[in-house]
């Protein structure tokens, strides 16, 4: 029996994959199925799930309602669509900014002397040792009215005898964007670095021999060959940003509701797990659609595996 197993590679593979498969089945497939079932249910007055089949939760998400204030038969209120739209645009903006900031840094690290590279990568990773939420709180200390940034600018202004009003930075959309970009930057730097590092230097020499200047070399050689890293980084950044609400809660002062907040509220304050389940599924489907079109255009980014 053991002998046969030793020879049979495919059985070995199955056995090795078994724990993960069971894990995924119990913690991913079953909950997902439950979410689907609950999303077609109804809320009881006490906030329990009544199992039935109704599309009401999805209709409510779409904005159409028969429960109009002024007595019309149906009316349209794009509230939830706006929330979804806002989350999407925040995710797009964050991802775009992260790419713009991460690429030059990754390029710099990849081109550094191998001995320094370790050092630089180490520095990129150090912040990740600290808990995510604590790092966001640190930004609060920096951004608040009597925070570090305003104090330092105040000193300089005082020194130069310029009148100074402290900037209102904390609890603004800008603060949220800064926090998001900061949190997700390493997840873009690492995959881009990996794909840049793999580029064979003889390709640059060949480009130079053929008369390409440095801009042309970058556009025709470096950028296309590093695209898998950018794609992988985008997936690693975009998907979590879509569902995150901690950063916007802490740095944005909770004035803005993102789709993550909406879902969380349904399971806590509103005690409406049916609507929360429907919103979760829609979020997942939306993320899948965006990722699908993105990867169809740019490939799946093998760097996810490599990174």
């Amino acid at each position, binding site marked *: 029996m053991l002998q046969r197993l030793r020879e049979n590679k495919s059985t070995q593979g199955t056995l090795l994959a078994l724990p993960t498969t069971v894990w995924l089945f119990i913690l991913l497939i079953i909950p997902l199925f439950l979410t689907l079932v609950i999303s077609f249910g109804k809320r009881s007055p006490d906030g329990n799930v009544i199992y039935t089949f109704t599309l009401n939760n999805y209709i409510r998400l779409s904005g159409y309602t028969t429960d109009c204030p002024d007595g019309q038969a149906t009316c349209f209120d794009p509230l939830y669509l706006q929330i979804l739209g806002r989350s999407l645009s925040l995710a797009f903006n964050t991802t775009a900014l992260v790419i713009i900031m991460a690429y030059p840094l990754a390029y710099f690290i990849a081109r550094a002397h191998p001995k320094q590279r370790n050092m630089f990568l180490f520095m990129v*990773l150090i912040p990740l040792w600290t808990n995510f939420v604590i790092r966001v709180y640190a930004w609060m200390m920096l951004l*608040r009215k009597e925070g570090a940034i305003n104090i330092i600018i105040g000193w300089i202004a005082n020194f130069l005898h310029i009148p100074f009003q402290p900037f209102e930075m904390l609890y603004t959309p800008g603060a949220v964007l800064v926090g998001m970009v900061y949190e997700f930057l390493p997840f873009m730097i690492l995959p881009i670095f990996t794909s840049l*590092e793999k580029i064979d230097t003889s390709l640059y020499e060949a480009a130079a021999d053929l008369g390409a200047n440095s801009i042309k070399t970058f556009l025709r050689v470096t950028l296309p060959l590093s695209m898998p890293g950018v794609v992988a980084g985008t997936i690693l950044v975009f998907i979590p940003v879509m569902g995150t609400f901690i950063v916007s809660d802490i740095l944005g002062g909770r004035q803005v509701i993102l789709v993550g907040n909406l879902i969380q509220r*349904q399971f806590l304050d509103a005690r409406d797990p049916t609507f929360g389940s429907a919103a979760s599924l829609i979020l997942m489907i939306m993320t899948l659609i965006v990722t699908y079109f993105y990867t169809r255009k740019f490939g799946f980014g093998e760097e996810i595996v490599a990174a």
Partner: protein
Amino acid sequence: MSKSNLFKMLALFVIASMALAACGNGAQATEPAADGPKVTSTGFECPAAEFPMEATSTELNIFVWTEYIPPDMIECFELVSGIKVNRDEYSSNEEMYAKVSAGGSNYDLVQPTDYIIALMARQSLLQELDHAKLPVMANFDPNYLDFEFDSGNKYTIPYQAGTDAIVVNTDAVETVPASWADLWNPEYAGRMVFLDDSRAVIGATLLTLGYDVNTTDPAQLEEAKNKLAELVPNVKLFDSDSPKTALIAGDVDLGITWTAEALIAQQENPAIQYVYPTEGAILWQDNWAMLTDAPHTDAAYAWLNYTMQGNIFWMMLRDFPYTNPNKAALDFAKENYADLYDAYMASPITNTPAEAVQNGHRISDVGDATPLYDDIWVEVKGQ
């Protein structure tokens, strides 16, 4: 950099962080209780149990609000009873309810606020208390017993009480608000912190309009939504975890907070005042309740009787000064810690004035209308 090097580095991080975590655990190990007087790690000498209870359990699982139980209280109970207390914490009633109603939580005692008690009882999550096993009930001021949310204290006994009202830095504003309606004053735009609590904020709006805080009338709620929509852009931040921080740091100058937050802010900056609005503040009370599937009821009764006795519960005045329903504790403080007692009695924040209580409103569960309130909240914030 080669991949194997990267892995080595990562492995090193993991080992280093595990070593650090191990150190943390080691430091927390408790020493075995010595004979003689039982003294906590802060040097507090624990009094004996006034109402000793038979308990065979060796553990007690409590699920409580964050920052709400004095460490000395837990340590003394452990030293005197020999029962180990396992504590988990939550920061909203909804969070507690979600965890407890999912079942299998294994908790003995929870600390629900008034409005969620009826709901928990209807869901059969709470067990009726055996008053014969609670001689400590005699310690409470009757004004804090037998409320509508739990008549006859069938399921709960009081812990602490408080209010949600207006807090204002009188040095920073031109006019000090006197009512909920005053919050709409354009002077306050961008200078307010509100609790991130839909029922409290919508409740204040309903009171401004002259409606009941627990209305389920869709027309009144629609009106409140439109009224609140005017105010929300003026709110700089919503924070239910620590609204005092922004107030003390000067990021905001006024807002809606609860008792202890206002008191701590005032201790930091005496210009910060607590205003009971003319339409009436929101009153609340936190309570102890025992879960239906509590595994250690004997330990739970021992805990309630011991921690609520006057010579233990006085320390709430020292550590978490809310409105204290425990008469025995106040009497004990009066005799032994006069300065604490005087400060408590003198402050209108902790010692809520009688007219503010009379004028106040209590939030209750609104059943089917709960999603309506939530929709208002999502809509006014999402605009």
